[in-house]
């Protein structure tokens, strides 16, 4: 029953439910995300945002519910298979490969998720261009373990970018950063979005969400309570209650 | 050869034996289960305690259980020191202890083995007490007092540890440190102090467990190697950090071993218990009664 003029969604989540033991973390969540969209995901702590990310990226198995990506049912696929199809993510708490340099961190992504078969030289170029774009050019040969918090965030995004994603999910990439650093990362994300990458951004910093998103979805206790333009969602009474109520 | 009598007997002995396994594993349940210290030297500490008990029993005719209680404070301090060394080496550097922690404790275990050999020689040792070598008779049943002692001590230890961990401030802090160090800092406790204390307790428990070990069977300096698999098996099967779970898992193991031994032959007993462990790990990695974030 999709209207004929709307483009086919890049990501379609249908009736997704996730339970942990007796606890229902996500309940019957359905949403479509268009190609190239900048999508904000908000909700109080424990509302199921990260669980939803984990279901999209394949870390959690869903039962029942399906995830369609580019028209393909990716529900039975493992995370690395989804990554290779173009779903990439960063983590709420950065998870670098600590024993590697920044460049090697990216090489992992290029080695395993690059779509076409490319030469080592081309990969090196690709890596350097991503690092430069992310403002990490000078850090290429530095050990990942020695990076600062904001550098780690950037490296996470850079590593995610190196997988050549169609969909990038950023899980609180700005948590714990100063306001100037927040702007820096936000500009980065906006520039990526300008290059035909669909982005889902989870964030607590409302200004960032408002500035970034075309559409915003709010989760509370595992249910969608609002979905619309940023202003619509902010104006929603249930959203305000959810935030104030906690 | 099968008879209900034998089966019943196997179950009873298995429960008692399981309690003994539980008692020697409780310390590990704290040090490995709650603190995540890969303490493969735990059985070596245990054997060391047995030799201390032997020494007191042999030279001063102290009852083994009393001797076990006597060495408990010494082992507590020993535990504090051991953890301090471990902490300075691994946790402080913020590196994952993993393999190197294991290697470290293997090294410690070897050193303890050699020290015991140098002091006591390689012969096996055992203790004498009124309850060693006699049995309690009930109709046709006879149950060795040694095992009843093990049963009683294991139960008391489990209850005391469980109460300690749930009722006292320090106990709760120890459990908190296992789950969330940040929350612990908010409680106003120093995680290092708490962990060190917990490791001290884990080691102190070994004093009494060591007494049980030498009461139940004779010890020799390299007996620890036989208990590495067994104690870790119990703790992992129980699920990390659950004291009552440790006892129950140990009893399950004891009963399984005892039944297999009676019905199918003793030579398959170790394979059975470790196959059970593998099964549990494969199906339910967090153990039967495990915590899992």
């Amino acid at each position, binding site marked *: 029953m999709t209207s004929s003029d709307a483009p086919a969604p890049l990501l379609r989540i249908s009736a997704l439910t996730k339970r942990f033991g007796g606890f229902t973390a996500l309940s019957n969540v359905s949403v479509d995300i268009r190609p190239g969209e900048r999508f904000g995901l908000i909700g109080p702590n424990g509302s199921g945002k990260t669980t939803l990310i984990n279901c999209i990226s394949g870390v959690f198995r869903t039962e029942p519910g399906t995830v369609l990506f580019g028209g393909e049912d990716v529900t039975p696929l493992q*995370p690395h298979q989804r990554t290779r199809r173009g779903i990439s993510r960063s983590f709420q708490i950065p998870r670098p490969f600590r024993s*590697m340099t920044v460049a090697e961190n990216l090489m992992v992504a290029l080695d395993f998720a690059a779509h076409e078969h490319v030469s080592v030289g081309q990969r090196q170029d690709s890596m350097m261009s991503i690092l430069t774009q992310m403002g990490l050019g000078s850090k290429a040969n530095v050990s990942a373990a020695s990076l600062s918090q904001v550098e780690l965030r950037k490296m996470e995004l850079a590593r995610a970018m190196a997988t050549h994603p169609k969909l990038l999910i950023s899980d609180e990439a700005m948590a714990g950063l100063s306001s100037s650093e927040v702007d820096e990362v936000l500009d980065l994300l906006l520039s990526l979005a300008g290059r035909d990458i669909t982005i889902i951004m989870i964030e607590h910093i409302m200004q960032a969400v408002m500035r970034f998103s075309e559409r915003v979805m709010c989760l509370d206790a595992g249910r969608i309570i609002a979905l619309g333009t940023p202003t619509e969602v902010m104006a929603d009474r249930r959203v305000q209650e959810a935030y104030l109520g906690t | 050869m099968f008879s209900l009598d034998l089966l019943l007997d196997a179950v009873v002995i298995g429960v008692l034996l399981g309690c003994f396994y539980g008692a020697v594993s409780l310390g590990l349940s704290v040090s490995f289960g709650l603190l995540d210290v890969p303490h493969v030297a735990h059985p070596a500490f245990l054997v060391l305690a047995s030799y201390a008990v032997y020494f007191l029993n042999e030279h001063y005719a102290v009852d083994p259980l009393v001797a076990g209680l006597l060495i408990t404070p010494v082992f507590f301090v020993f535990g504090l020191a051991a953890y301090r060394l471990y902490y300075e080496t691994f946790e402080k550097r913020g590196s994952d202890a*993993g393999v190197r922690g294991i290697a470290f404790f293997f090294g410690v275990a070897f050193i303890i083995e*050699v020290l015991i050999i140098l002091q006591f020689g390689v012969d096996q040792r055992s203790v004498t007490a009124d309850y060693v070598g006699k049995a309690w008779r009930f109709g046709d049943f006879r149950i060795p007092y040694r095992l009843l002692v093990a049963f009683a001590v294991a139960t008391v230890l489990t209850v005391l540890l469980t109460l300690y961990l749930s009722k006292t401030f320090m106990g709760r802090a120890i459990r908190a440190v296992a789950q969330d160090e940040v929350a612990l800092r908010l409680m106003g406790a120093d995680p290092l102090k708490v962990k060190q204390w917990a490791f001290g307790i884990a080691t102190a428990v070994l004093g009494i467990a060591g007494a049980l070990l030498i009461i139940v069977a004779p010890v020799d300096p390299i007996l620890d190697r036989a208990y590495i*698999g067994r104690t870790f098996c119990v703790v992992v099967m129980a699920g990390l950090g659950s004291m009552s779970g440790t006892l129950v898992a140990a009893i399950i193991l004891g009963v399984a071993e005892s039944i297999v031994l009676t019905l199918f032959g003793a030579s398959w007993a170790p394979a059975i218990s470790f196959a059970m462990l593998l099964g549990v790990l*494969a199906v339910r990695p967090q153990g039967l009664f495990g915590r899992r974030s």
Partner: protein
Amino acid sequence: MTRNSMAFWTGAAVFLAAVFVMTQVVGNQYPFFAGYVILQFIALAVAWSILGGYAGYVNFGTSAFYGVGVYSSVFLVKAFGAPLPLQILAAAAIGALMGLALGVLTLRMQGIFFSIATIALTIIIETAITNWRYVGGAAGIQIQRPPVTAPFENYVQMLFFVQALLVVLAVAISRYIQNSWIGRGLQALRDDELAAECTGVPTLRLRLLACVISGALLCAVGAPAAMYLQYADPGSAFNLNYSVTTLAMSLIGGTAHWSGPIIGAILLGTTQQLLTVTISSEVNVLVLGLMLVLFVVGAPQGIIGLVGRLRGKKEGGA
């Protein structure tokens, strides 16, 4: 990269040639007996490191794989009088299957749980062999060596050369893995399995691959031991020492580079052989204990790490 490869293969060829010449020239048997043991530990440590070092999955079951290697040879010799190359190949195949089984069984386990599972596996397999009367069971079994093959004049010299081949094979595989995408993937999953998976690394498949390769090599290394000892008993073949010593060698050498386990095995293996014929008492065990503690405390990244720190932490890929 290519220059490094050239250097490596030249080195390997020189090593094998030297070993071969030694078997033809040296008449004294002792260097071959002692050397065999050291080579065997080098191969074990290198093979172990593929899973334990690169992937970070600490396998305590080295003795299980080694023992299965020994007993697969015992079985083949007793049942079919199989020649040595066949024994080694068969052991490698069985080891690969065993590694696969271990990998599948432990798919959901991480960290120390994996290690404990390998301990459990060791005890189960040892129990099975102990109860298998055909290969001697607990009582052990004596095996006759077939006549030696030319150009070797002595069986132990031949075994020494064969073990040297296995060392080169193990090192070549280990080095290839380290320098290839497999190595990078394993390193990523060792650092952070979830992040690796989400970066496109097929972590489960790589783990299985590491289990299979490491298992095949460990078993293959154990296979010639049956002919070396001409005797097998479960207590010796499944000795905990193999597990601990292999682990110690890898750690002392360092697991970050393929050469680490070699250095560690040479150092510790030679020390142990020397101690056996000098001090020769419980002090021997004490030295192993002290070396483990001191290295783990003083040189957490092993000798490789020490060297790296001395050279100012700048090294290329080879």
